[in-house]
């Protein structure tokens, strides 16, 4: 079950590093320190008795160790990529890109075309009024199916 943390952390990192090659070298990219920091046991939530789809967020339920964790610089073929994550209050607060390839003209071109730096955040409930709602709703059942499929992929 502990290994389940891997794809989770990957999402946080890969969305910042953002390239296909990073995915293939993800393990070296994330580094043992990072995994140690966040490799917590993850439990699938129990189905509420009334069948309501209120499922606790995995990201909010997991308590990481507070602090900043720097991954190693990883060769992403066209240059090095390195990120630092910050955990506050037990939660992933930010991911900062320490270095990415931009020193060479060719790298810059590849970057602008294939490496958009996309912002990530932990979702949080908003109290503002809205006129219309767009969204997919996960029932507990669908959520548990997804969890099980993810666990299966993670070798759990």
């Amino acid at each position: 079950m502990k290994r389940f943390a891997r794809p989770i952390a990957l999402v946080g990192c890969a969305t910042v590093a953002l390239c296909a090659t990073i995915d293939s070298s993800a393990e070296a990219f994330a580094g043992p320190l990072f995994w140690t920091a966040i490799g917590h046991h993850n439990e699938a939530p129990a189905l509420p008795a009334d069948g309501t789809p209120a499922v606790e967020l995995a990201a909010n339920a997991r308590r990481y160790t507070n602090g900043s964790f720097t991954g190693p610089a990883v060769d992403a073929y066209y240059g090095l990529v390195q990120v630092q994550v910050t955990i506050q209050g037990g939660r992933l607060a930010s991911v900062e890109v320490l270095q990415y390839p931009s020193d060479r003209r060719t790298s810059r071109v590849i970057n602008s075309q294939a490496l958009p730096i996309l912002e990530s955040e932990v979702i949080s409930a908003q109290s503002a009024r809205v006129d219309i709602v767009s969204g997919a709703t996960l029932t507990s059942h669908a959520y548990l199916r997804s969890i099980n499929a993810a666990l299966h992929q993670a070798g759990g």
Partner: protein
Amino acid sequence: MARDTRILMGMPITIEIVEDGLRDLVDDVFAYFATVDRRFSPFKPDSEVSALSRSPLPLSDLSADLREVLAIASRTKRETLGYFDIRRPDGRLDPSGIVKGWAVRNAARRIEAAGCQHFFVDAGGDIQSLGKTAKGEDWRIGIRNPFNDREIIKVLVPRGCGIATSGTYVRGQHIYDPYRPGQPIDDIVSLTVIGPDVLEADRFATAAFAMGKAGIRFLEELPGLEGYVVDLNGIATQTSGFRAFVTS
């Protein structure tokens, strides 16, 4: 003002027209959705889509509407590297991934053609709005928390753009990765796309969702489209232009 919600095409459809005296127009638009359902439902054995699913028909035998939807589906498949495919793993045709956005866009065009400038049409979270609310404010659209349907996690002001959300819905996995048939898409749970209109938003939301984690990068490369994806762990990632639509 006229506003009504009805269940059609297996989902709640809401129409609100801010201008007065247009109750009949609302009824007309609902009637339009009913005709779309009769023609395009993969669940109705007597629909045109079901007939085409059972046996190939010459193009000349198809209605203009179905030809248009098939053309859009074929174009979308090309534009999304094959990730949008209306042919399901079992071989049946299911154009639902386009028909919803297409029908909402057409409904909005009907309302506009009748002279209205302030309205919205919402079919199961595919939303086309125009103009202002009855209070003269911008339409505000919430993105639902995929883990708790009583919460919203983002407030958007689309200003005439279309919005669609693909996800792992109540009925379970209904989107397939055509390159890995039979495998559920389990790493992302909700993807909201803002596009020039609701049809563009819908077709790219469906395709990008099927791409999994790579979908948001795909959207980033496309002009005129922005996206907000939520993964299984409640981490959201947005395209670089998405922030311009966010309000609080």
